[in-house]
Protein backbone atom coordinates (compact mmCIF):
# COMPACT_ATOMS: atom_id res chain seq x y z
CA UNK A 1 0.00 0.00 0.00
CA UNK A 2 2.77 2.36 0.95
CA UNK A 3 6.20 1.89 -0.50
CA UNK A 4 7.29 5.52 -0.72
CA UNK A 5 7.39 6.15 3.00
CA UNK A 6 8.90 4.71 6.15
CA UNK A 7 6.57 4.22 9.11
CA UNK A 8 8.07 7.24 10.85
CA UNK A 9 7.54 9.44 7.78
CA UNK A 10 3.99 8.20 7.38
CA UNK A 11 3.25 9.00 11.03
CA UNK A 12 4.69 12.48 10.61
CA UNK A 13 2.71 13.20 7.42
CA UNK A 14 -0.46 11.95 9.02
CA UNK A 15 0.05 14.22 12.01
CA UNK A 16 0.83 17.26 9.83
CA UNK A 17 -2.34 16.59 7.81
CA UNK A 18 -4.26 16.13 11.04
CA UNK A 19 -3.18 19.56 12.24
CA UNK A 20 -3.98 21.27 8.94
CA UNK A 21 -7.39 19.63 8.70
CA UNK A 22 -8.05 20.88 12.23
CA UNK A 23 -7.42 24.39 10.96
CA UNK A 24 -9.62 23.81 7.91
CA UNK A 25 -12.46 22.45 10.04
CA UNK A 26 -12.18 25.39 12.39
CA UNK A 27 -12.46 27.82 9.47
CA UNK A 28 -15.62 26.11 8.22
CA UNK A 29 -17.08 25.58 11.71
CA UNK A 30 -16.87 29.30 12.42
CA UNK A 31 -18.47 30.13 9.08
CA UNK A 32 -21.47 27.84 9.46
CA UNK A 33 -21.60 27.73 13.29
CA UNK A 34 -21.75 23.93 13.38
CA UNK A 35 -19.49 21.26 14.75
CA UNK A 36 -17.39 19.31 12.27
CA UNK A 37 -16.23 15.77 12.90
CA UNK A 38 -12.72 14.95 11.77
CA UNK A 39 -11.37 11.54 10.90
CA UNK A 40 -7.82 10.22 10.80
CA UNK A 41 -6.06 11.29 7.58
CA UNK A 42 -5.23 8.61 5.08
CA UNK A 43 -1.86 8.56 3.36
CA UNK A 44 -1.33 6.22 0.41
CA UNK A 45 0.45 5.69 -2.91
CA UNK A 46 -1.65 5.91 -6.07
CA UNK A 47 -1.30 5.63 -9.80
CA UNK A 48 -3.32 7.98 -12.04
CA UNK A 49 -5.64 5.03 -12.82
CA UNK A 50 -6.32 4.39 -9.16
CA UNK A 51 -6.78 8.10 -8.57
CA UNK A 52 -9.32 8.42 -11.41
CA UNK A 53 -11.20 5.30 -10.42
CA UNK A 54 -11.88 6.88 -7.03
CA UNK A 55 -13.68 9.71 -8.78
CA UNK A 56 -16.70 7.92 -10.13
CA UNK A 57 -19.34 8.55 -7.50
CA UNK A 58 -22.46 10.33 -8.75
CA UNK A 59 -23.75 11.18 -5.27
CA UNK A 60 -21.07 13.85 -5.01
CA UNK A 61 -19.69 16.92 -6.77
CA UNK A 62 -16.04 17.39 -7.55
CA UNK A 63 -13.90 20.49 -7.76
CA UNK A 64 -10.33 20.65 -8.79
CA UNK A 65 -7.46 23.08 -8.28
CA UNK A 66 -3.73 22.87 -8.75
CA UNK A 67 -0.93 24.24 -6.64
CA UNK A 68 2.53 25.45 -7.54
CA UNK A 69 5.60 26.26 -5.48
CA UNK A 70 8.30 24.21 -3.81
CA UNK A 71 5.77 21.39 -3.92
CA UNK A 72 3.38 20.95 -6.84
CA UNK A 73 0.25 18.96 -7.30
CA UNK A 74 -3.46 18.85 -7.42
CA UNK A 75 -6.31 19.13 -4.93
CA UNK A 76 -9.68 17.53 -5.54
CA UNK A 77 -12.56 18.35 -3.21
CA UNK A 78 -15.33 15.78 -3.03
CA UNK A 79 -18.57 17.31 -1.75
CA UNK A 80 -21.69 15.29 -0.98
CA UNK A 81 -24.94 16.23 -2.68
CA UNK A 82 -26.76 15.24 0.46
CA UNK A 83 -26.80 18.03 2.99
CA UNK A 84 -25.49 20.68 0.64
CA UNK A 85 -28.76 22.63 0.79
CA UNK A 86 -28.49 22.72 4.56
CA UNK A 87 -24.94 24.07 4.30
CA UNK A 88 -26.11 26.62 1.70
CA UNK A 89 -28.72 27.76 4.19
CA UNK A 90 -26.13 28.13 6.97
CA UNK A 91 -24.01 30.20 4.57
CA UNK A 92 -26.91 32.53 3.79
CA UNK A 93 -27.61 31.36 0.23
CA UNK A 94 -31.20 31.60 -1.01
CA UNK A 95 -32.91 28.26 -1.59
CA UNK A 96 -33.62 26.60 -3.96
CA UNK A 97 -30.16 26.99 -5.45
CA UNK A 98 -29.87 27.57 -9.19
CA UNK A 99 -26.92 26.18 -11.14
CA UNK A 100 -24.80 29.30 -10.69
CA UNK A 101 -25.33 29.69 -6.98
CA UNK A 102 -24.79 25.96 -6.45
CA UNK A 103 -21.43 26.15 -8.23
CA UNK A 104 -20.55 29.25 -6.27
CA UNK A 105 -21.33 27.46 -3.00
CA UNK A 106 -19.32 24.36 -3.90
CA UNK A 107 -16.32 26.37 -5.08
CA UNK A 108 -16.44 28.46 -1.93
CA UNK A 109 -16.52 25.36 0.28
CA UNK A 110 -13.72 23.72 -1.70
CA UNK A 111 -11.60 26.82 -1.42
CA UNK A 112 -12.05 27.16 2.34
CA UNK A 113 -11.28 23.50 3.06
CA UNK A 114 -8.55 22.92 0.49
CA UNK A 115 -6.97 26.31 1.14
CA UNK A 116 -6.69 25.79 4.89
CA UNK A 117 -5.55 22.18 4.48
CA UNK A 118 -2.81 22.95 2.00
CA UNK A 119 -1.65 26.18 3.61
CA UNK A 120 -1.49 24.58 7.07
CA UNK A 121 0.40 21.63 5.69
CA UNK A 122 2.93 23.67 3.71
CA UNK A 123 3.48 26.17 6.54
CA UNK A 124 4.37 23.49 9.05
CA UNK A 125 7.08 22.29 6.70
CA UNK A 126 8.12 25.81 5.64
CA UNK A 127 7.33 24.88 2.04
CA UNK A 128 5.61 27.16 -0.45
CA UNK A 129 2.47 26.09 -2.27
CA UNK A 130 0.16 28.53 -3.99
CA UNK A 131 -3.29 27.26 -4.80
CA UNK A 132 -5.16 28.27 -7.95
CA UNK A 133 -8.90 29.00 -7.88
CA UNK A 134 -11.02 25.85 -7.95
CA UNK A 135 -13.15 24.87 -10.91
CA UNK A 136 -16.02 22.40 -11.11
CA UNK A 137 -14.77 19.07 -12.34
CA UNK A 138 -16.37 16.12 -14.06
CA UNK A 139 -13.79 13.36 -14.00
CA UNK A 140 -13.53 11.09 -17.02
CA UNK A 141 -10.89 8.50 -17.80
CA UNK A 142 -9.69 10.66 -20.71
CA UNK A 143 -8.18 13.03 -18.18
CA UNK A 144 -5.58 10.43 -17.27
CA UNK A 145 -3.11 11.74 -19.85
CA UNK A 146 -2.96 15.03 -17.96
CA UNK A 147 -1.29 13.38 -15.03
CA UNK A 148 2.43 13.57 -15.40
CA UNK A 149 3.21 11.10 -12.66
CA UNK A 150 3.44 7.32 -12.57
CA UNK A 151 2.79 6.82 -8.91
CA UNK A 152 2.51 9.39 -6.20
CA UNK A 153 1.54 10.27 -2.71
CA UNK A 154 -2.08 10.93 -1.91
CA UNK A 155 -3.28 12.51 1.32
CA UNK A 156 -6.94 12.29 2.07
CA UNK A 157 -8.95 13.96 4.84
CA UNK A 158 -12.68 13.75 5.60
CA UNK A 159 -14.96 16.33 7.12
CA UNK A 160 -18.42 15.52 8.33
CA UNK A 161 -21.05 18.07 9.38
CA UNK A 162 -23.28 15.73 11.36
CA UNK A 163 -26.19 18.06 11.95
CA UNK A 164 -26.56 18.63 8.18
CA UNK A 165 -25.59 15.13 6.94
CA UNK A 166 -22.96 16.78 4.80
CA UNK A 167 -19.66 15.09 3.94
CA UNK A 168 -16.60 16.40 2.27
CA UNK A 169 -13.26 14.97 1.39
CA UNK A 170 -10.10 16.81 0.38
CA UNK A 171 -7.63 14.79 -1.67
CA UNK A 172 -4.15 16.20 -2.16
CA UNK A 173 -2.00 14.56 -4.81
CA UNK A 174 1.63 15.48 -5.08
CA UNK A 175 3.51 15.38 -8.35
CA UNK A 176 6.20 12.73 -8.37
CA UNK A 177 9.01 15.30 -8.39
CA UNK A 178 7.60 16.92 -5.25
CA UNK A 179 7.62 13.74 -3.20
CA UNK A 180 11.40 13.88 -2.83
CA UNK A 181 11.27 17.54 -1.75
CA UNK A 182 8.65 16.61 0.81
CA UNK A 183 10.62 13.66 2.15
CA UNK A 184 13.81 15.71 2.58
CA UNK A 185 11.92 18.39 4.51
CA UNK A 186 10.14 15.77 6.57
CA UNK A 187 13.42 14.14 7.50
CA UNK A 188 14.77 17.44 8.84
CA UNK A 189 11.71 17.70 11.05
CA UNK A 190 12.20 14.20 12.40
CA UNK A 191 15.88 14.57 13.30
Amino acid sequence: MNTLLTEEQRDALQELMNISMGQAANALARLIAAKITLSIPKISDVTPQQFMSMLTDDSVWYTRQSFLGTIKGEVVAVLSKEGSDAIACLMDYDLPLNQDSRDELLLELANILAGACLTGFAEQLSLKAKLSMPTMYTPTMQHIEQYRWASTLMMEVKFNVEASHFDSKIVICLEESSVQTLLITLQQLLE
Partner: protein
Amino acid sequence: MPIPVTIADDSLLSRKVVRRALPVDWDVEITEACNGKEALAAVNSGKAEVLFLDLTMPELDGFGVLKYLHEHHAKTVVIVISADIQPEAKRLVDSLGAFRFLQKPLQPEQLKQALVELGLI
Protein backbone atom coordinates in the same frame (compact mmCIF):
# COMPACT_ATOMS: atom_id res chain seq x y z
CA MET B 1 12.42 14.63 43.12
CA PRO B 2 11.54 14.84 39.45
CA ILE B 3 7.86 15.45 38.63
CA PRO B 4 6.21 12.50 36.86
CA VAL B 5 4.91 13.72 33.49
CA THR B 6 3.09 11.74 30.79
CA ILE B 7 2.83 12.69 27.13
CA ALA B 8 -0.18 11.00 25.51
CA ASP B 9 -0.39 11.19 21.72
CA ASP B 10 -0.71 8.52 19.06
CA SER B 11 1.76 10.34 16.84
CA LEU B 12 5.47 9.80 17.46
CA LEU B 13 6.18 13.18 15.86
CA SER B 14 3.81 14.95 18.24
CA ARG B 15 5.28 13.27 21.30
CA LYS B 16 8.70 14.38 20.09
CA VAL B 17 7.45 17.95 19.56
CA VAL B 18 6.08 18.10 23.13
CA ARG B 19 9.29 16.63 24.57
CA ARG B 20 11.38 19.24 22.75
CA ALA B 21 9.10 22.06 23.91
CA LEU B 22 9.52 21.27 27.63
CA PRO B 23 11.86 23.69 29.42
CA VAL B 24 15.32 22.07 29.63
CA ASP B 25 15.76 22.90 33.29
CA TRP B 26 12.39 21.42 34.33
CA ASP B 27 13.13 18.34 36.46
CA VAL B 28 10.72 15.72 35.11
CA GLU B 29 10.47 12.01 34.54
CA ILE B 30 8.70 11.46 31.21
CA THR B 31 6.41 8.58 30.31
CA GLU B 32 4.96 8.27 26.80
CA ALA B 33 1.47 6.91 26.02
CA CYS B 34 0.17 6.08 22.53
CA ASN B 35 -3.53 6.04 23.35
CA GLY B 36 -6.05 6.92 26.06
CA LYS B 37 -5.83 3.56 27.81
CA GLU B 38 -2.07 3.85 28.18
CA ALA B 39 -2.56 7.40 29.45
CA LEU B 40 -4.94 6.21 32.17
CA ALA B 41 -2.57 3.38 33.09
CA ALA B 42 0.17 5.99 33.54
CA VAL B 43 -2.11 8.12 35.73
CA ASN B 44 -3.10 5.10 37.85
CA SER B 45 0.50 4.11 38.44
CA GLY B 46 1.51 7.58 39.59
CA LYS B 47 3.39 8.51 36.44
CA ALA B 48 1.29 11.52 35.52
CA GLU B 49 1.16 14.39 37.95
CA VAL B 50 1.06 16.39 34.74
CA LEU B 51 -0.55 14.93 31.62
CA PHE B 52 -0.11 16.37 28.12
CA LEU B 53 -3.11 14.99 26.30
CA ASP B 54 -4.02 14.74 22.61
CA LEU B 55 -7.74 14.45 21.81
CA THR B 56 -7.86 12.27 18.68
CA MET B 57 -6.40 8.90 19.69
CA PRO B 58 -7.30 5.25 19.09
CA GLU B 59 -8.61 2.89 21.82
CA LEU B 60 -9.77 5.68 24.09
CA ASP B 61 -9.70 9.30 22.93
CA GLY B 62 -8.71 12.36 24.94
CA PHE B 63 -12.32 13.20 25.79
CA GLY B 64 -12.69 9.70 27.28
CA VAL B 65 -9.56 10.20 29.37
CA LEU B 66 -10.78 13.59 30.62
CA LYS B 67 -14.17 12.13 31.47
CA TYR B 68 -12.61 9.30 33.48
CA LEU B 69 -10.30 11.66 35.37
CA HIS B 70 -13.17 14.05 36.04
CA GLU B 71 -15.42 11.28 37.40
CA HIS B 72 -12.63 9.88 39.57
CA HIS B 73 -11.63 13.30 40.91
CA ALA B 74 -8.04 12.71 39.81
CA LYS B 75 -5.48 15.30 40.85
CA THR B 76 -3.64 15.13 37.53
CA VAL B 77 -2.99 18.49 35.91
CA VAL B 78 -4.18 17.97 32.33
CA ILE B 79 -2.92 20.18 29.51
CA VAL B 80 -4.74 19.34 26.28
CA ILE B 81 -2.73 19.75 23.07
CA SER B 82 -5.14 19.41 20.17
CA ALA B 83 -5.35 19.60 16.39
CA ASP B 84 -9.13 19.93 16.71
CA ILE B 85 -9.33 23.62 17.51
CA GLN B 86 -13.06 24.18 16.98
CA PRO B 87 -14.80 26.25 19.67
CA GLU B 88 -16.95 23.20 20.49
CA ALA B 89 -13.91 21.03 21.28
CA LYS B 90 -12.46 23.69 23.55
CA ARG B 91 -15.78 24.14 25.34
CA LEU B 92 -16.07 20.40 25.97
CA VAL B 93 -12.48 20.15 27.18
CA ASP B 94 -13.04 23.05 29.61
CA SER B 95 -16.23 21.49 30.96
CA LEU B 96 -14.32 18.26 31.63
CA GLY B 97 -11.84 20.04 33.85
CA ALA B 98 -8.70 20.34 31.72
CA PHE B 99 -6.38 23.09 33.00
CA ARG B 100 -5.31 24.37 29.59
CA PHE B 101 -6.19 23.95 25.91
CA LEU B 102 -3.21 24.44 23.60
CA GLN B 103 -3.46 24.34 19.81
CA LYS B 104 -1.35 22.31 17.45
CA PRO B 105 1.09 23.10 15.94
CA LEU B 106 2.43 23.55 19.46
CA GLN B 107 4.33 26.77 20.13
CA PRO B 108 6.98 26.14 22.83
CA GLU B 109 6.45 29.65 24.29
CA GLN B 110 2.76 28.92 24.82
CA LEU B 111 3.55 25.68 26.58
CA LYS B 112 6.08 27.43 28.81
CA GLN B 113 3.60 30.20 29.60
CA ALA B 114 0.98 27.62 30.58
CA LEU B 115 3.46 25.87 32.88
CA VAL B 116 4.34 29.20 34.52
CA GLU B 117 0.67 30.17 34.96
CA LEU B 118 -0.11 26.81 36.52
CA GLY B 119 2.80 27.22 38.96
CA LEU B 120 4.56 24.15 37.59
CA ILE B 121 7.82 25.92 36.82
